[in-house]
């Protein structure tokens, strides 16, 4: 099955391993790229346009470059950047799948892109229909009742969800008493951070030896001061929480709500639904499961879907289908209020909507089937090479550990990661989840062919046999060698200007 270099970024140095100067170093006084349309608007002296005390003396010093140099600079920068379109990106928890180009075309459509967010309802019927249908699809996928599309990312969705939780408890007279939110020790860092911002305290529940929530330990922590629990399922170990129905029952029994972190939704499309598991609130990372490209760290979109009883708390205004077949806005009666300047990351939502339409229900189910198959294949292929702390049927990702290699030869997870960069693959997520030592969290996703997954496994196997010394120097073929992260923090240079002044701190 192992084909030639499937999915590896074999792209190479066009040129010497030089630094790319900053745009400020390329700048030269008087150069310009800009040009504006001719408007015929009359001139005004600047001092009639700006009140005296507020007028700048000097223009803001930005950069002065020709269009040619601007284009070359950012094109060269793009050549110093790995991306899904160059090769496999098996970053666990991140679902770095291929983003169909068709969605780019949708996001670029003038009829969608050139619409003002405050435009009257009569002029935005297409957008409202798109959003309503997306919300309906997301509810069908998660088994929930209604959704808000406002949250611009997963973490924003989490906080929105926690505020929904709060609003619920407040309406039940328990705002003051419900102080705690339970999260597993394997949880993603945004979960505890959001809990704090939601005004709650974090109670951690440990994982058991199967890698799942320790149900007994959970029960110990449950009481009427618990506002709710936040879970991912499959969890960050890529394992399905088998006791989820039991967990849901226990949490609901004490009056708590269940929050579903949808970062791992790519595993279960058409297979099982958070709503059926008993979750009350679900966020989705459309930039993971629904092919919104990550953009180097964003923008994403983090819609939140809720069960019927929580629908009245959703942020408003919500796009809705009206009785006459047209579309409008609706403010839920007990809304927590807006969580975004406008209606969320609309063009990202449009991308996800088109991805769902193109795949359809059948296609989405196939997505999860193959995502899970790829990850299980990888576990079977690499068990024995790497430690597999929880060697049981996994979902869309699998967590390996380099402890065996560390013991044997001092090879750490970070070394494996850097060596993989040399081999033409992006590194897996390392040192997460925190409960696994020397964790290597691998998520191949369904868009990588069997050949690519095999090539990744081959590379990981080769690396596992490497000398620690070789790995310490890795990566050697990348635009820069191993980066000194400690120095960046010690001698902070957050801007080019700080650089010139020799660094801050």
């Amino acid at each position: 099955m192992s084909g030639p270099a499937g999915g590896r970024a074999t792209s190479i140095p066009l040129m010497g391993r030089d630094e790319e100067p900053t745009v400020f170093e390329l700048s030269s006084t008087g150069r310009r790229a800009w040009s504006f349309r001719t408007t015929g608007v009359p001139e005004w002296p600047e001092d009639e346009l700006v009140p005296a005390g507020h007028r700048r003396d000097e223009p803001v010093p930005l950069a002065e470059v020709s269009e040619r140099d601007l284009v070359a600079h950012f094109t060269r920068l793009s050549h110093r950047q790995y991306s899904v379109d160059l090769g496999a990106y098996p970053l666990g928890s991140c679902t770095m799948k291929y983003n169909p180009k068709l969605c780019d075309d949708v996001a670029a459509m003038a009829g969608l892109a050139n619409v003002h967010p405050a435009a009257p309802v009569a002029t935005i019927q297409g957008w409202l229909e798109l959003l309503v249908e997306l919300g309906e699809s997301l509810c069908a996928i998660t088994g929930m009742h209604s959704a808000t599309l406002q949250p611009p990312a997963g973490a924003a969705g989490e906080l929105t969800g926690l505020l929904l939780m709060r609003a619920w408890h407040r309406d039940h007279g328990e705002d003051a008493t419900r102080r705690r939110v339970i999260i597993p020790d394997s949880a993603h860092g945004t979960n505890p951070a959001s809990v704090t911002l939601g005004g709650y305290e974090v109670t951690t529940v440990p994982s058991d030896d199967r890698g799942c929530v320790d149900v007994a330990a959970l029960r110990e922590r449950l009481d009427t001061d618990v506002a709710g629990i936040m879970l991912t399922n499959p969890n960050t170990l890529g394992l399905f929480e088998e006791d989820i129905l039991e967990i849901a029952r226990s949490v609901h029994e004490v009056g708590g709500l269940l929050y579903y972190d949808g970062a791992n939704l790519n595993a279960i499309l058409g297979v099982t639904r958070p709503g059926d598991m008993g979750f009350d609130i679900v966020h989705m990372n459309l930039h993971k499961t629904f092919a919104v490209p990550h953009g180097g760290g964003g923008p994403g979109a983090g819609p939140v879907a809720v069960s019927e009883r929580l629908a009245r708390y959703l942020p408003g205004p919500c796009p809705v289908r009206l009785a006459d077949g047209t579309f409008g806005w609706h403010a839920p009666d007990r809304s927590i209020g807006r969580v975004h300047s406008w209606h969320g990351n609309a063009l990202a939502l449009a991308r996800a909507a088109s991805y769902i339409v193109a795949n359809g229900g059948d296609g989405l189910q196939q997505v999860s089937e193959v995502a899970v198959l790829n990850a299980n294949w990888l576990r079977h292929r690499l068990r024995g090479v790497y430690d597999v702390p929880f060697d049981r049927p996994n979902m869309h990702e699998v967590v390996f550990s380099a402890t065996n290699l560390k013991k044997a030869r001092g090879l750490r997870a970070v070394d494996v990661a850097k060596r993989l960069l040399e081999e033409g693959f992006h590194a897996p997520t390392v040192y997460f989840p925190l409960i696994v030592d020397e964790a290597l969290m691998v998520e191949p996703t369904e868009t990588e062919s069997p050949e690519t997954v095999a090539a990744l496994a081959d590379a990981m196997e080769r690396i596992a046999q490497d000398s620690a010394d070789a790995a310490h120097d890795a990566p050697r073929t990348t635009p820069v060698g191993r980066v000194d992260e400690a120095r960046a923090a010690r001698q902070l240079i957050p801007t080019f200007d700080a650089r010139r002044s020799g660094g801050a701190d």
Partner: protein
Amino acid sequence: MPSYVPHTDADIAAMLAFCGLSSIDELWETIPSALRLAGGLDIAPGLSEPDTLARFERLGAANRACGPDLVCFAGAGAYDHEIPSAIRRLANRTEFVTAYTPYQPEVAQGVLQALFEYQTLVARLTGLEVANASLYDGASACVEAVNLAVAAAGRSTVWVSRGVHPTWRETMRTFAAGTGHDLVDVDLVDGTTAWPAGGEPAALLVQYPNHLGCVEDLAAARAVADAHGAMLLVAVDPVAAGMLRSAGDFGADVAVGEGQPFGTPLSFGGPYLGLFACRLEHVRRLPGRLVGETVDADGRRAYVTTLRTREQDIRREKASSNVCTNQTLIAVTCAIQLAWLGTGGLRELARRCARGARYARDGLLALDGVEPVATAPTIREFAVRPPVDSATVVDRMLEEGFLAGVPLDESVGAGDGLLVAVTERRTRDEIDAYVAAVERVIK
């Protein structure tokens, strides 16, 4: 339907066999059978790519997009600026679009350096020392500014001018339900904020120019803040910044703003870009990601996300913010557009907007029955009070081919009014036609 899954049936069979499984169904053995969804998703089967595109073209056609048939005079934080061909193409380069967060700096220098340049440009624009690598939008930047100020001051009251964008204020209020911060609305008087005398605010938040387009007196705000030992948080319009003294220049501690005007289309409101800059002393409370310069093993210049101990993945419940995925691509776009504008272009852009706004304002105010909402000086956006209510004006103007502006929100406390923005794209002919149409519809 298109399939983005490469696996053929033979591939699947071979992989299953390798795993010792005989069917896909066996992959789900750890899922309780009660939870197995029978009969698949209640979503229509997939459509081919051309069919999918046709469907979204139809949705697009069901909108009335801004363009020659609907000339845009609306703003209120979302502006119809020119996006040069070069910027669109660079920002759409797939290496930027399909990259992840730069967790592995050795293969992410492209995004990291672009963000470093973005941070520098935003710092220069705001007159502050450090800027983060982006927040979600103007609203989230305000939320984070307040969080930073409260954490720094150890006091939880923040005075928020009613001149701050209404949806930003609403968003702050939503999140204050979690943090428990006490946000106090401060009224406008004739267009600018009238700060109260007493109280113990951790910070003052003011918009510059404010939601009515009026230039707030930042020196006065700084003085009020100083009198209370409070921080000054300023939401800046980054385009007007091309002609205005910077927030930093007036002693602001934090500057936030909406970066959409630089290279991002109206986009029905998103993805946009939360600008966030502050004084260096607050850097350890900075929300979101920060890129710093360093060196690689061979001493070559390199960039990396830094001071990561502020962040949620390390600090968890004690993080300065919960932001993880941010708006990197929009920040990169902003950096490219700011570099394209450059020193001279930004000033020229601001001037052109201001001239257009002045010309339109003079035209509107010359109409019978149209009054200014406030007399404080405005730059590129302004509010007028028409003789019929402004929502009606907007509706009628649609037939005339104009998106006339944004009706003022009640919460601003300035009464009814139409907020009008004029960008560098608006020609004199368009403005003349616009004023003439307003004259017709208010009759």
